[in-house]
């Protein structure tokens, strides 16, 4: 059974991190970060050319992580692969013991760094989940033909953006994802827990019952936060956080100390994680450190979160 599934179903506070494959063939940085994450998180999402920027494929890093003793989550977008290619990748992944996946629609090539690439979108997030659920239920492939040895059992997840207007539209899509087979959800990075709470209440009111892990992005600086506010859909870092980061930068300048804003960002992330756990807002968190995966263990320490061995 999927390690993440076990954690969530046993009621343990679930923790996932996230990593991107390299733009090239040298995976050593990722594997070094993986060693630090071992025993600290239940699983590690491996992104599928996030922001439509070309990287080595998700499956490749997933296999590396699995062989290094971590539990990878295969992120699958519909952007570059037809249903056949997606199913083929999932079968290959399963043969390596990779049994946890996250289905996404995927950012459009137009926003990425290989703009001439053909957008596929044979299936969107809901379609991918539905196809994999059908595969498991029927033991057959996407054309209805039997799979030799039957279908792999997968723990399937999806993403949601709590900061979205109109909210009912987002909640409706979430419902479709759950109906299509999503058994866990990870949110876009959240910064305002009251906002998150309101969103979760509306999800519950809509009768949707699925574990939703809060997305946590440790901020590195006010500049990064402002950039994300401007450019990343669904990200809304509150003014108060920006002001604290600005103050930390000013303090660092005055004292001649480097890295104060990033340190504060880690503290704020830890604080949010502790609060989410303390108030039982969410059954887990998903930490997106965006290249600073080595900081994840320290953030979890500060939050007082230690996963069971």
């Amino acid at each position, binding site marked *: 059974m999927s390690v993440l599934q076990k954690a969530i179903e046993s009621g343990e506070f679930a923790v996932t991190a996230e990593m991107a494959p390299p733009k090239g063939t040298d995976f050593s940085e990722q594997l070094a970060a993986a060693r630090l994450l071992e025993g600290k998180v239940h699983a590690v999402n491996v992104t599928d050319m996030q922001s439509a920027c070309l990287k080595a494929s998700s499956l490749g890093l997933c296999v590396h992580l699995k062989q290094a003793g971590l539990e990878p989550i295969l992120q699958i977008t519909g952007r570059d692969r037809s249903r056949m290619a997606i199913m083929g990748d999932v079968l290959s992944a399963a043969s390596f013991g990779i049994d946890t996946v996250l289905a996404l629609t995927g950012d459009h090539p*137009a*926003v990425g760094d290989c703009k001439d690439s053909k*957008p596929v979108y044979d299936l*969107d997030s809901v379609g991918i989940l539905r196809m994999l659920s059908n595969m498991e239920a029927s033991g057959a492939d996407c054309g209805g033909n039997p799979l030799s040895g039957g279908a792999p059992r997968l723990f399937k997840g999806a993403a949601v953006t709590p900061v979205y207007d109109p909210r009912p539209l987002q909640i409706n899509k979430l419902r479709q994802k759950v109906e299509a087979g999503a058994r866990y959800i990870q949110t876009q990075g959240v910064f305002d827990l009251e906002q998150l709470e309101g969103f979760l209440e509306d999800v519950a009111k809509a009768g949707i019952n699925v574990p939703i892990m809060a997305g946590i992005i440790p901020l590195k600086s006010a500049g990064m936060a402002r950039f994300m506010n401007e450019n990343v859909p669904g990200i809304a870092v509150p003014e108060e956080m920006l002001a604290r980061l600005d103050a930390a930068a000013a303090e660092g300048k005055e004292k001649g100390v480097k890295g104060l804003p990033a340190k504060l960002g880690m503290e704020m992330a830890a604080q949010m994680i502790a609060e989410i756990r303390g108030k039982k807002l969410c059954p887990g968190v998903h930490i997106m450190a965006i290249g600073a995966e080595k900081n994840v263990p320290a953030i979890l320490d500060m939050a007082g979160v230690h996963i069971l061995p």
Partner: protein
Amino acid sequence: MIITQKKPAEELLAMLEGVTKVAIVGCGQCASACQTGGEKEIAEMKTFLEEHGMEVVGTVLPDECCHKLLMKRELKALKDSGAEAIVGMSCGDGVQTVADNMLIPVYPANNTMFLGQVERVGMFNEYCHMCGDCVLGSTGGVCPITKCAKSLVNGPCGGQKNGKCEVNPENDCAWILIYKRLEALGQLDKLGQTRPDKGYAGVAYPRHINLREKKS
């Protein structure tokens, strides 16, 4: 309407390299409305080709260029014209229909862009991708296949920012349009309807429809 745009002049001239006698075929329908193949554009093309040393031996402006039998009749006027090539000022369908009727090269003067709405003179918006299985009935009359940059049928991606699409911030997010329209129509329940996956088996092209085929 099929929306067309003029090709760059140099591209057309390159295709016509070595041609001395040429004929022009326009189209009285879409290409006239798009100002790419009507009377005025044909006259301009004639002048342009003559300026580049070609003799224009005939011009034809049929009611519609995509009608094979009609074109067979219309093109008789060019049969003995001595034209070595034809400049087709219609959509790609029209150019091919001319070619179906004449065994000389037919060169497109236009790029065929999309099936769209004429918002007003000279302003066109892409409206339908001819997906073969129209879903407008459940989307408030807003096409998610065409107006969503990813052709998503199950609701939006997370990429909209202030109601605008992640792919082109000049475009409204189709799913927010759909939501607003369904809300205004009192049909928000339709948002919850699951759309079965249509797949792509039914849209392998080229497709044909024959209303005369006997029902079996």
